[in-house]
């Protein structure tokens, strides 16, 4: 246990953790939205994130971008990346819902069937990318590529603020701020708009909502698309910060994001954000205190302890239970 390393520069580790957690949080929103409405853990969501990273990589390569373009162009490319990532992830999420889940829902399949289908869809997407798409997006035609693929860096990561010994980089600020903005936007959308009211209605009681004239299928499609958009945004942040992708990149992120969603209270949007950021910070603390090998152990110990005292997670469930 290296307490000096941790407390010597606690602020820095917190910043590192928050920026790591921002991606978990955005991906966690997708899990939580779908769960809140359908009571379904959409394990294919991690692959929807992966698709986003590849779509952005493909677009950037197509535009012939090399490392660190000028700041003006970088902003343009990032915006294009956001559009492409969100579109690709949103479209994939929609397709998954249409192809894999809708028919099961019509047939009133038991929850376990959905779970297995979700895992199956996830495997199918991973292999499609490993066998064809990863090669395609890295510019080698439709060929098998299971390797780590580098993505050109958009922004040079530079320290812009130093607070309490923490050097905060431009990219870290963008990550945390975007996560907060996206959550705020989503929260407002769900709580203030007509569409959001429909989502909440279906979450509370699908049958009554249908009687009140809410089109259930449309609401469910909307929920999948929203989750996909968030995953697409997370994919952009990921590409910007880590600059690599791979066919199975979604697996670990998805697992962590799902953990974050449970930690914060699955079905609760703000909980997903809180859980994600918290998980990121815990992991960085644990890795600093001991070795990186222990970060998962620490994360899951905290999860278990939280669930013992608060079985519904830190903020509890809210999208489904008649609050909000």
């Amino acid at each position, binding site marked *: 246990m290296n307490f000096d*390393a941790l407390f010597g520069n606690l602020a820095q580790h917190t910043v590192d953790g928050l920026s790591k957690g921002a991606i978990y949080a955005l991906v966690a929103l997708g899990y939580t939205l779908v769960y809140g409405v359908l009571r379904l853990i959409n394990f294919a969501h991690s692959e929807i994130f992966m698709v986003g990273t590849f779509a952005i990589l493909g677009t950037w390569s197509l535009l012939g971008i090399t490392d660190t373009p000028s700041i003006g162009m970088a902003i343009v490319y990032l915006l294009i990346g956001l559009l492409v990532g969100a579109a690709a992830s949103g479209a994939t999420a929609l397709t998954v819902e249409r192809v894999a889940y809708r028919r099961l829902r019509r047939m009133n399949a038991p929850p376990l069937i959905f779970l297995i289908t979700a895992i199956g869809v996830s495997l199918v997407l991973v292999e499609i990318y490993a066998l064809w798409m990863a090669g395609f997006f890295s510019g080698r035609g439709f060929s098998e590529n*299971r390797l*780590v693929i*580098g993505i050109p860096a958009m922004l040079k*990561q530079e320290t812009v603020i130093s607070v309490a010994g923490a050097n905060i980089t431009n990219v870290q600020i963008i990550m945390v701020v975007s996560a907060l903005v996206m959550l705020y936007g989503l929260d407002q959308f769900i709580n203030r708009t007509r569409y959001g009211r429909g989502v909440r209605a279906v979450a509370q009681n699908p049958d009554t909502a249908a009687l009140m004239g809410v089109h259930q299928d449309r609401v469910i499609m909307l929920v999948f698309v929203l989750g996909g958009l968030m995953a697409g945004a997370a994919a952009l942040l990921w590409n910007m910060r880590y600059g690599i992708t791979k066919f199975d990149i979604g697996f670990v992120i998805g697992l962590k994001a799902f953990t974050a969603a449970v930690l914060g209270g699955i079905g609760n949007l703000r909980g997903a954000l809180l859980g994600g950021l918290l998980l990121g910070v815990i992991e960085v603390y644990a890795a600093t205190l001991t*070795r990186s090998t222990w970060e998962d152990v620490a994360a899951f110990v905290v999860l278990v302890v939280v669930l013992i005292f608060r079985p519904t997670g830190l903020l509890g469930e809210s999208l489904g239970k008649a609050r909000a």
Partner: protein
Amino acid sequence: MRRKYVRALGAVGLAAALFAAAGCQASDEGNDAGGDGNCGGKLAIFGAFSGPNSGLVIPSLNGAKLAVRQHNEANADCQVTLQEFDTQGDPTQATPVANQVVGDESFLGVIGGAFSGETKATMDVYEAAGMVMVSPSATAIELTAGDNKAFHRVVGNDATQGAAAAVYFRDVAKAKKVFVINDGTTYGAGIAGELTKALGDLAGGTDQVQEKQVNFAATISKIKAAAPDAVAYGGYTNEAAPLLKQMREAGITATFLGFDGLYDPAFPSGAGAGANGAIVTCPCLPPDKAGGTFSADYEKEYGSPPGSYGAEGFDAAKVLIEGLAEGKTTRKDLLEWVDAYDKEGVSKYLKFDPTGDVDKSRVVIWAYEIKDGAITAQQEIKLS
């Protein structure tokens, strides 16, 4: 001298017995579908031929295939077959493969494993069956530390590579403080441990990461706190590429050195511009330094120069093929043949010590530098 006589006598005796057997077979040829007689046979090769680290292994597979093809073209009456088993470098996948190979009596020898972990998991199975293993690239020390009779390798082990990296840091990079990271695998932790030992008081700071990790913020803050002028990484491309990328982006300019696990074209392409100037050590020869016409033959066959362990794969196959060609067509004979092997190969002079390691005085270790995304030979590291 006496032992040699005994061996020679034994060999003559065996040869006589085999000739007799061949004679018998020749007399009732109709029964023998293969018609191989006492020449040729079947070999197995296993390793990560797909999966994230396959870039490291494919050249040795290609080298072995080349050796088999050349032999078969030159000796129409003595055919050797090579069957590939893809383990993805995973010990749990290599174990059923080992049982399958051992259970099939027609397999006489094994080329592999490509990685240390899968080799460690399966070497006892092969030993129990009396099957010889010749690995082109499994470098963990512990593989030859026990008394396993089956295992041989045509490369130097991690101890020599770790020591060579220390020499490189001290004499070439003139480093004052080296931060050592490993990925917790048999290979990564082992080689990093050897390096730390050889570095002595140059070693300053350490961290362990894990496979499939992608965020290295904690490791990076530890490196920053230690402020080393060099960073060494024991592990594979999958984690090294993002680690190096994030290090460079975080403004760490220390020399980066990895071992043969990073002698893989995917490493510079994954790490991007940050990889330039990184050093990779490898007990493998630069392809153009390989003996004979190997390099040209390989390039002609596969359209690219041999990468990591291409020459070693060729050598490993060659050792076994020559045995088969000499009529060592039982598992026991082939094992004895490899034990007694003493000949120039394309990668180095091949002769095994009793533990199965290649003769230590013949091991060569090279430092390679990443330049413009390509792995280019820099210099040979002289151990003494």
